[in-house]
């Protein structure tokens, strides 16, 4: 066919300009702008940034303070009676029952919490999206099998499974990550499946099919981008759940092996000493609370910012 003549058809004369001042901004950019306006979400984001900084810079902080997380400072860190020392200039947050610097331990605990929280979430989301997408898109036998599988996983009693697994394999960081990811992916999968089921009925998917697009292309190019919003929201809200999950595991002694500090095992140890060392209970708990709260608030903000119901065109009639 010969080249297309480049004359625009005379439907929009020169002096007509569409009264549209909006720039070429993607839905994600618009959401980001909305998020920036949300004060609470921004404060949470900054808090998380600080936490990440703390986690990454833990060795530096330890070096600056001059204390090590696992060293027991018996002379300076314990009273003559052998009890923990309260917050002071030398020990910013006090010490624990073995004379270890609580501040440094909390700082190092941040590493574990964030690492496990983020990695297990990422794994869970990856698995959930893959399975949910396949189930929702292909339907039929594939869907029946995968959906039932997800239902089974969701009905597993996590504690019993965790205990069983740990007793066989032994507690460790890797096991923690795996257990948490295993119990989180199915919820993501269910949501993704539901979204996929509704997206695949949309006309633009039909249009892609009529153009001859294959299943894989449709899944990745047309369906997946439209899943991003709920997936991002869910991810942001899944991280604090994973962090609490990890703390629970280590609280029960099923997580990371001591003496590595985690907030969970610190809390667990602290309970015996709450009468004599309130700081031992308070500060790890506060750290956990702050982190969880920050992620949850950020997650709420992200969800509001990504709310697709805000159509840019106002059609009043």
């Amino acid at each position, binding site marked *: 066919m010969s080249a297309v003549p480049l004359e625009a*058809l005379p439907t929009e004369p020169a002096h007509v300009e*569409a009264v549209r001042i909006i720039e*070429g901004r993607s839905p994600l950019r618009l959401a980001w702008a909305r998020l920036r306006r949300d004060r609470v979400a921004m404060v949470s984001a900054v808090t998380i940034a600080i936490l990440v900084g703390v986690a990454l810079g833990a060795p530096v902080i330890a070096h600056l303070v001059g204390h090590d997380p696992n060293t027991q400072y018996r002379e300076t860190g314990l009273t003559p009676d052998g009890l923990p020392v309260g917050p002071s200039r030398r020990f910013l947050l006090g010490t624990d029952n073995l004379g270890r610097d609580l501040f440094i331990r909390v700082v190092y605990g941040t590493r574990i919490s964030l690492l496990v929280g983020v990695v297990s979430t990422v794994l869970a989301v990856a698995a959930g999206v893959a399975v949910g997408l396949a189930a929702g898109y292909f339907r039929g036998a594939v869907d029946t099998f995968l959906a039932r599988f997800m239902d089974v996983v969701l009905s597993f009693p996590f504690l019993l499974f965790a205990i069983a697994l740990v007793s066989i394999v032994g507690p460790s960081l890797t096991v923690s990550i795996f257990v948490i990811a295993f119990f989180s992916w199915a919820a993501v999968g269910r949501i993704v499946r539901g979204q996929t089921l509704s997206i695949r009925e949309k006309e633009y998917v039909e249009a892609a099919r009529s153009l*001859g697009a294959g299943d894989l292309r449709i899944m990745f190019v047309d369906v997946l981008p439209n899943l991003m919003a709920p997936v991002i929201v869910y991810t942001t809200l899944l991280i604090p759940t994973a962090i609490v999950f990890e703390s629970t595991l280590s609280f029960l002694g099923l997580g990371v092996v001591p003496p590595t500090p985690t907030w969970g095992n610190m809390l667990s140890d602290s309970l015996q000493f709450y009468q004599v060392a309130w700081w031992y209970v308070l500060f790890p708990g506060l750290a956990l609370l702050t982190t969880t709260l920050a992620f949850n608030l950020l997650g709420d903000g992200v969800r509001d910012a990504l709310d697709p119901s805000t159509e840019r065109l106002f059609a009043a009639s």
Partner: protein
Amino acid sequence: MSDPDVVLTVENVVKHFPIRQGIVVKREMGRVHAVDGVSFAVRRGETLGLVGETGCGKSTLARCITRLYDLTSGRVIFDGVDISRLSRRQLHPFRREIQMIFQDPYGSLNPRRRVGSIIGDPFAIHGIADGSQRKRRVQELMEVVGLNPEHYNRFPAEFSGGQRQRIGVARALALRPKLVICDEPVSALDVSIQAQIINLLAELQDEFGLTYVFIAHDLSIVRHVSDRVAVMYLGKVVEIAPARDLYDRPRHPYTAALLSAASVADPDIADRRKRILLAGDVPSPVDPPSGCRFHPRCPKARARCAVEPPELVRRPSDSPNHLTACHFPVEATDDLARAAGTGGPPGGQGRSPR
């Protein structure tokens, strides 16, 4: 055997949707007779209009033609090739030749993709032109349909309904198809925008030698754009004729009722017209009436109509292209308005003088 002038032949196409119920094993409880034996041919360069109300099966038929649905039975022959049973891979090259424009300007474009990417999709899927060459061709298309090519990187949400429909048109025309199925392309648009798109489609048809199947429920628009028109009711074609013949001398009572019901933007004509008001609503395609499907609502129905389904054939004194499926077609002397029990101008004997 096959007429080289005929682009599309639809032969006894049937599409039923089973209704399944059951807990463990799903059993078929009934079927939706969406399309129940439709046949027609479309010649190169012509526009065949397809009209009908909800449940008539026109949209389902469109999707059968483009093989978005598999046929329950019957054949779809495109350019001499029977595409009804081809596998997906075999069908792939035909996807370049048969394209579809969808009704909903807000739903037919992926909101998360840029317009340039959406229009470039056909090129990507069929491995034609990539990189800067593809971009150039996409921008050419945008100009052809009346969009500013500089808006290549914008998202659908930044365009109005009419502009989005132009994007849909550009996407459909990217690979220079032979046949374009337009499924209610202007129904969701404002009146002033509808005319823009209709004109655009007409110009493109001339420019690129396209053949259209134009599906709509607005009779005025169908009449304006079509060379021939087919009227569907409950999964069957009840009448098919050149546009002028159909509108001036409808032979099927349903066509006559439909035409009399259409709204006309002309007060004198609206006043003069005698409305044929049909009783009741369109029956469900799950359990269509026996014999002629229209017989329960037809002002001319007689005993035979409940028993014997009529054939779509030419009636004596009609032109050779005018086919009607009716045992007792409308005659010039008929007063269907009276037969339907609703004589006279719309409710209006007692209307205040203007």
